[in-house]
Every structure is written in structure tokens, then in C-alpha cells.
């Protein structure tokens, strides 16, 4: 058949594709220009390096194979993979097939797409041709199987491991309709052609013969190809305005990430890449405790990013988040949504809180030069047993220390920062830094993970900062004679800020295994649940918080432990609200309970510290 015979139906496809080819580079360029000069410098330095190869590898495994979704749920992974990878293979194999058949590498782009139309009576002369014919049919089946799952998921999401499917907006529905039509129409057009010409692969030929016996195949043939082309073109035009923008943007984001570009304090072009990389797969909403326990279903990462993208973000949506990090940990695209949320909060709130100047910002007591400086933090003042346990253990281990906030009254700055009060937080950080430097201590010990994270990430301290779980793990390893194993059955609660926030999972566990019998729970490490006490959520009601707390507590006591251990005073305080049968203690308290008996006559208490006389 000759190309000029019926060339018009290819135009919807060609126009759609042309639009994409112009629109996408233009918009990506616009975003790139919005990134900082430093970011662009980073990009040009890394573009021809091994980083690009690594990025391509990740693009392959995430954008096409969807490895992370597979890990979340194999059926869901298969659905995403069959659509993405299947379509990708259809393009690649189709192009190869056409090139082999026409012996022309530069055939027009629509030729492989509508190959069957142009060469309907093509019967492969050799094994190679037969192989391609069969392969293309297999790939079509592969994609159609994924599509069936996708349609099924809309109605029965639980089957694919999802509590519910995400809610769509109009551009999504339009694009989705075109997308769902593409492959059934391709199958219809190819089948009808096979039926009319009595030639084709095992699948299309058999279905084509069946169709031809029932329908006027010859008359329907051209309309079917038109419909297929329109579906393709329509999808391409709708793509940049729908969630399917993620298909190409995700690949761009992976490249940028590997080239060293990071989310910044203020929204810029990189944020645009991140926002448009969200496929609204809904995995984030699925792991979100606000949704599971508190009945909040509008502020999850997927909806936040959507509202931000379409310029309809309500401040409350940005504020109603625990910053627990479960969504980012589960996100197949690795979008740092908490950072983007914080950008939005800061945009709104920063000017509403002035910088702080504390006349009383002086170091209480005598600093212990060269010793350990312990910062208890606001929350620890409400859990004095944590502070006292730390004091006891440090005294017992003969560690020279002083307490920075013994008299109370300073804040690390993180709560203000999380609310978007950036300039206020910076002023707090500056003054607290001055105090720490004046102490001339050699190490900053912190018992609150909220403080720990900000000391680690925002303060530029010349001394190491250690969370007490890490410090005591090292202490117990150096002085094992101080502790004995109580054989008590315990479970461990990873606090959000220490676990997902700071990546400290193993040290507390190692320490606890030394002093007690640690049993696992249903949600460990990256998958740990938030206690619900989070300072980051500015919109949740106390009653909704309680629902989250109860669920988290229930799973911690499910293995019937003697007590639950956490390493955050905020988590402890949150869990101790109301009436609880099994107590929640801090890791320092667990350690204090495991101290070996003191040899009595050696020490007397003098002033604030135990001193050795012998």
C-alpha cells in the first residue's frame, strides 16, 4: 500500500506529537532558568559525568520498571510497569520492526505507530519477521493487561493494595479517557486490518477474523485508525495539563537530582520539576496516618502537590501535615514534599513572626570547658525523668557535663521553622549558637530528636552533636560493666525526627538489645508510625491527634511488652496522655533501669556532681 493513499488520519497523532515536542522543551527550559545560578553551574559540571549514566539507570528502573512501586505492592507495580515499560517497548520494537521492513532508518514517526495500516498484508518471510510480529502482539497484550488492572483499580482499589484511589480533576479525566482508549483502539484497528487482509500476529489475526465475521470490517477499518490516531493526539495534547506530565518530568527530575540539584528554602524551578513529577499514584495517601486514623483526606502529599500545581492551594492544606515523612519515604518518585510544604508555609507565615532578641540569653551555671554540654530542650522539661536519667547515667559514667538549659527557657528554633517562621527561627538559632560556643564544650548532647535534627542541619557548630541514644550506645560499648541486661520484654518506637528525619535506626536498637529483650513490631524503621504529637501539624484537632496516637500505641503494645521505649520526649508525652496500661519510657530511662548496682562507699554527693574520693 502506498503512503499517499490515506494519509489524513495520521494528522491528529502528528499534531499532538509536534505539540509535545515544542511544549515540553519550552516549559523545561523556563523552569531551568528559574533555578539558581549555582544549580545551573552544578548541572553543567555534572552533565558529562558518570552521574548522568547513574541517572539513566534510575530512570530505567523507576520510570519504566517502577521498582519502588513493585516493592510497595507487586500487582500495583505490574500495572504501572506494563503501561510504562510495555508502551516503551512497543515504541522501540515497533521502530526496529519498521526499520527492518522498510530498510530505512529515517522513516516518518507515524510509520511504526500505524505500521499495520501501511503494510496490512505483510506476511513475514523469515523467522526474524515472525518474531517481531509475535512480539508486537505480545507487547500489546502486556499493555492491555495493565490497562485492565488500571480500570479495575478505579473501582476496586483494595485489590491492588491501595485503601482508595486518588480523586481526579478534569484535565486528568480527559487525559485518562484518551489514554484508556489508545490501546483498545489500537487493538481494534490492527485486528480489523488483520481480519480484512487475513494477515497478522497470533493475537490480532485471531481476534480480527472473529471481528470480520461479525462486523463490516472493511467499512470500519479506516474509522478505527482515525479513532486510534485521535486518541493518541488527544492524549499528547492533554498530557502537559494532566497528571501524565509526570511521565517526562520524572525523568528530568531524576537527572537533576543526580546532577546535585536540591530543594531549596524558597520555591524555584526545581520545585516546578518536583511538583510536575507527581503521578498522583496515591501511595502517599495510602500510608498517611491522617487519612487512615483521623479521617483527613484532603491534605495528603498528592493533593497538596496537585493544588499547588493548579494554583488553588489553601493554606490549611499546607498546614495539615505531621511532617512524619512516611509519604516521602514511600514516594516512588522520591519527591521531598515536606520541603515543598515548608516553602509554602514560609511564604505565608514568615513575615508574621519577628526575629527574637533575648536579653536573658546567658549560659546558666558554670560551663564545663571541654566537657559535654547537654541541651534538654523544651519538651524534656515536661518529662523530667528523662533529664534525671541522663544526669544519673552521666554521673555514673564519670562524664564531665553541664546542662545548657537547666533553668529552662531556650528553644532550638525548629518548631518556629516548621511553622514557616523562618526569620524568627534564624534569630533563635543565632542566639543559641552563641550560648553553645561560649560554653567551650567539646560535644553537644541532645535528648530531643526535634532539637537534634535542627542542630545537625541548620546550626553550623564546630563541635559534634549527638543524640543521647547514639551517645549512650557508644558509652555502653566503652563501659559495658555499667549495664546489665534486665531481660525485660520491650518494643521500640522510632520517632519521626530521629528515624526518617535523621536516619538513626540502628544505634538505639543496638543499645536496647544490650539492656533488655527487644521484640519487633508491625511497623519498624522507615515504616514506623507517627505518635501523633508532631509539632508540624498546625491544623489537626486534639481529638484527631488522639486517634493517631491510639493506633500507634496499639501496634507498639501488640507484642505484649513490659514497656515501650522511645527516644523522644514528645513521643513519650504524647503516648502518656490518657490512661495507658503499658508504660512508655525514654531510652535513657530504660538504660537507667539497667545500671549495675553502685559500689557504695566510693562516692559521696558533693554539690551537683558525684565525685570520686577513693
Amino acid at each position, binding site marked *: 500500500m502506498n503512503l499517499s493513499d490515506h494519509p489524513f488520519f495520521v494528522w491528529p497523532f502528528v499534531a499532538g506529537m509536534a505539540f509535545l515536542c515544542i511544549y515540553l522543551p519550552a516549559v523545561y527550559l523556563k523552569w531551568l532558568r528559574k533555578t539558581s545560578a549555582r544549580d545551573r553551574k552544578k548541572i553543567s559540571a555534572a552533565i558529562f559525568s558518570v552521574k548522568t549514566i547513574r541517572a539513566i539507570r534510575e530512570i530505567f528502573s523507576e520510570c519504566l520498571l517502577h521498582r519502588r512501586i513493585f516493592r510497595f505492592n507487586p500487582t500495583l507495580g505490574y500495572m504501572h510497569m506494563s503501561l510504562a515499560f510495555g508502551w516503551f517497548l512497543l515504541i522501540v520494537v515497533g521502530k526496529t520492526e519498521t526499520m527492518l521492513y522498510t530498510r530505512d532508518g529515517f522513516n516518518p514517526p507515524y510509520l511504526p505507530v500505524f505500521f499495520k495500516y501501511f503494510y496490512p498484508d505483510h506476511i513475514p518471510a523469515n523467522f526474524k519477521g515472525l518474531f517481531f510480529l509475535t512480539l508486537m502482539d505480545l507487547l500489546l497484550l502486556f499493555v492491555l493487561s495493565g490497562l485492565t488492572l488500571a480500570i479495575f483499580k478505579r473501582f476496586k482499589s483494595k485489590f491492588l493494595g491501595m485503601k482508595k484511589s486518588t480523586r481526579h480533576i478534569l484535565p486528568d479525566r480527559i487525559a485518562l479517557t484518551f489514554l484508556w482508549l489508545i490501546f483498545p483502539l489500537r487493538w481494534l484497528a490492527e485486528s480489523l486490518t488483520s481480519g480484512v487482509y487475513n494477515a497478522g500476529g497470533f493475537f490480532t489475526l485471531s481476534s480480527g477474523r472473529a471481528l470480520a465475521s461479525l462486523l463490516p470490517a472493511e467499512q470500519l477499518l479506516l474509522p478505527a485508525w482515525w479513532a486510534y490516531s485521535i486518541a493518541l493526539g488527544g492524549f499528547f495534547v492533554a498530557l502537559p495539563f494532566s497528571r501524565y506530565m509526570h511521565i517526562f518530568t520524572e525523568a528530568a527530575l531524576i537527572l537533576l537530582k543526580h546532577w546535585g540539584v536540591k530543594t531549596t528554602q524558597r520555591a524555584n524551578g526545581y520545585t516546578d520539576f518536583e511538583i510536575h513529577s507527581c503521578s498522583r499514584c496515591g501511595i502517599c495517601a495510602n500510608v498517611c496516618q491522617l487519612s487512615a486514623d483521623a479521617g483527613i483526606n484532603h491534605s495528603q502529599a498528592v493533593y497538596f502537590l496537585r493544588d499547588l500545581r493548579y494554583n488553588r492551594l489553601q493554606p490549611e492544606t499546607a498546614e495539615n501535615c505531621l511532617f512524619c515523612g512516611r509519604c516521602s519515604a514511600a514516594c516512588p518518585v522520591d519527591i521531598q514534599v515536606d520541603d515543598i510544604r515548608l516553602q509554602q508555609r514560609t511564604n505565608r507565615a514568615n513575615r508574621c513572626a519577628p526575629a527574637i532578641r533575648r536579653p536573658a540569653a546567658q549560659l546558666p551555671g558554670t560551663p564545663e570547658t571541654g566537657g559535654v554540654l547537654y541541651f534538654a530542650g523544651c519538651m524534656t522539661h515536661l518529662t*523530667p525523668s528523662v533529664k534525671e536519667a541522663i544526669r544519673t547515667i552521666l554521673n555514673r559514667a564519670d562524664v564531665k557535663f553541664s546542662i545548657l538549659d537547666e533553668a529552662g527557657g531556650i528553644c532550638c528554633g525548629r518548631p518556629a521553622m516548621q511553622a514557616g517562621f523562618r526569620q524568627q527561627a534564624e534569630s533563635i538559632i543565632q542566639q543559641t549558637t552563641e550560648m553553645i560556643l561560649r560554653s567551650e564544650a567539646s560535644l553537644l548532647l541532645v535528648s530531643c530528636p526535634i532539637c537534634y535534627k535542627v542542630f545537625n542541619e541548620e546550626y553550623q557548630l564546630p563541635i559534634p552533636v549527638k543524640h543521647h541514644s547514639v551517645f549512650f550506645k557508644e558509652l555502653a560499648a566503652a563501659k559495658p560493666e555499667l549495664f546489665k541486661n534486665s531481660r525485660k520484654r520491650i518494643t521500640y518506637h522510632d520517632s519521626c525526627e530521629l528515624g526518617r528525619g535523621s536516619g538513626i535506626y540502628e544505634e538505639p536498637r543496638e543499645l536496647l538489645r544490650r539492656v533488655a529483650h527487644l521484640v519487633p513490631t508491625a511497623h519498624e524503621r522507615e515504616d514506623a508510625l507517627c505518635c501523633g504529637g508532631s509539632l508540624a501539624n498546625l491544623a489537626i484537632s486534639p481529638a484527631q491527634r488522639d486517634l493517631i496516637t491510639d493506633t500507634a500505641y496499639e501496634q507498639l503494645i501488640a507484642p505484649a511488652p513490659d514497656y515501650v521505649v522511645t527516644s523522644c520526649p514528645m513521643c513519650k508525652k504524647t503516648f502518656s*496522655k490518657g490512661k495507658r496500661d503499658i508504660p512508655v519510657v525514654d531510652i535513657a530511662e530504660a538504660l537507667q533501669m539497667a545500671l549495675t548496682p553502685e559500689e557504695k562507699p566510693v562516692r559521696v554527693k558533693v554539690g551537683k556532681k558525684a565525685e570520686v574520693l577513693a
Partner: protein
Amino acid sequence: MYQHNRYQKGKPQQVAVVGAGVAGLSAALTLKKQGVGVVVFEKDESPGGHLQQWHALFPDREPAAGVLDLLKQEVSEQKISLRTQTEVAAVTPSGDKFRIETSQGEQNEFDAVLLATGFQLFDAARKEEYGYGIYQRVITSAGLEQRLGHGGTGLTVNGRPPHRVAFVHCVGSRDEKVGNHYCSKVCCVTGVKQAITIKEHFPQCEVLNFYMDLRMFGTGYEELYREAQEKWGVMFIRGRVSEASQMYDGTIQLKAEDTLMGRPVRATVDWLVLLVGMEPEKRAQLWARSLGLRTGQAGFFSSPEKFLHPSLTTVNGVFTAGACTGPASIPESVSQGRAAAISVLEFLAKKDEAGK
């Protein structure tokens, strides 16, 4: 009135009273005097309930031991069957009777059951910010009561009288953070009474009361409050204490807001006394579950006819009295015990009538 001849035919009807506190004993005495057979089950070694741990009673500061002795004397005079160190494990309906199984495995049947299981004191360690169980000089009102005997020697610090003592009101009451939204009623006046007793022992000691509201509802309470101000110079500061910490010398520093002054207040005291509230006894939940008794929001038993028949429960033949129905003072518990006894007698009379 109820003591007519129907018992002459055979064995008198039997009533089980669970709990030998003031409410349970008062009820048992009333029942016994009307010719009903009574067995009182008590988990402790001796009768009297919380009264045993109390030094003096508000509002007159009458010695608790005297009241308890009178009660015990009457119990022995009336030859009431008192089963101490016997915990009731289960109460199950059995025909028109109730079977009571004790922790020793003994089983007996009764015509009616009166629950007078009382209350438990709020565990002050749950308000961690007050430091109870962490700092030695943070004590509860119950702990203070025991230190008030023998001229208050239990309060001396290194052999010297205390300089300053502070009371914290509403510990474990009116506090949604510990799940107790209700008022425990008796702590306000207890704080006032204990403050006076400290001043009696140590006139030089400064006594502070930190309160949210002072609820002096009972007869003689307001007068006691006034006496504390006028005669004893007890200082009342309107503000709830938020946290306490221990100083190097063992004294306790507390933080509150003096809300009437509108400024934060900080004070170092020798003793910090937490006026702990009342919670339903844990076993109340047990009864509620096994017998299907209704409890109110706070977990105390509640009557389906709370105005006219406060001792009734949702189970016919099971009655309640005393602090298991909600925070109550001693005179209230006594009245409730006696009132419940009347309800039991009415029930027995009806049952007897029906059985004829």
C-alpha cells in the same frame, strides 16, 4: 419497718456487700439492724478503706482514727460477717440470685449485691512534669496525711521545720491530659485543711495553695477557707502549677502563673504536695463488663434513676454506694451507704412478696 415476721419462717435473706470502706460498712450495719444476713467482702487486711490512711477529717479536723474506731466497734457489736483479704473475683446472676466467687475460689449465693468498691487515688506519677516518684520532696495529699501525725515530724527537713510548703490543686482532676475531665470535689477542702494542719505544727512555715478554682461547696468548708486565710495566713495563688524541678539542695522549684497578677511566678519549696483526685477503682470496669452495669463518662457507676434512686444500677438486684458512683466525702459515703441499704431492703421485700 422491714423487720417484720417474714424471716421467722426460715433463713433470712442474704446480701453481699463488696468493699468495707465507710459506704460499705454503713450499708452493712443498716441492713443487719433490719434483720438481713450480710457478708462484707474486703480485699485489704482490715476494714475502713481509705479512711485508714487519713490523719484528720475536714472540715473540723476531727481525727480519722476516732471515726474509724466507732465504725469498727459497731461492726463487731452487730457481729457482721466481715471477710477481709478476700477479693471478689466474679459476680454472676444465677436464677433469681447472684453467685459470688472469691479469689480463694469459694462460691456463695446471695439475694442481692451491694457494690461499695470505692475509688483509687490518681497515680501522681502520671503527671510527670510535677516530678512525683522522681523527686523525694514531691508528695501526694495522701502521703502528706501520713506525715501529719506525731506533730508533723514527717515534714521536718534535716531536723528543722520546713520553711515553705506548696499545694497543687486539681492533680489528676479536671485534666483532660490524663483523661479525667471531672472535679474530684474533696481536694479543694483537703488542701485547705492540710494547710492549716501544717501551720498548726509549724507556725513559721509559709504555706501556698496554687488553685484554678476553689470549690468550697460543703457545710463548714467556706468557713474553713476563711479560717485558713485569716487565722493561719495561708496564701492562695490563682494559677495552675505547670512543672517542678529539683534544686541541688533537694528543694523543689515550681513554676506557675500568678494569673491575678498576670505574671509568671517561681517559688522554691521544701515540700510540694499534690492534691490527687479520685478515679474509679479498676475493678469497677470489671463489674461493668461482667454484669453489664452502666458507667458514666468518667467510669464511675451511674444509676438509671439518678435523682430519686441513686443506688440503683441497670441490673435488678445490684446496688451501688459511695465513691464508686463518683467522688464523695465521708459523710456523703455514709449517707449513700445507708440510702442504698434502704433500696436493698425494698428490693428484698418485693422479692419476698413475689416468692410467697
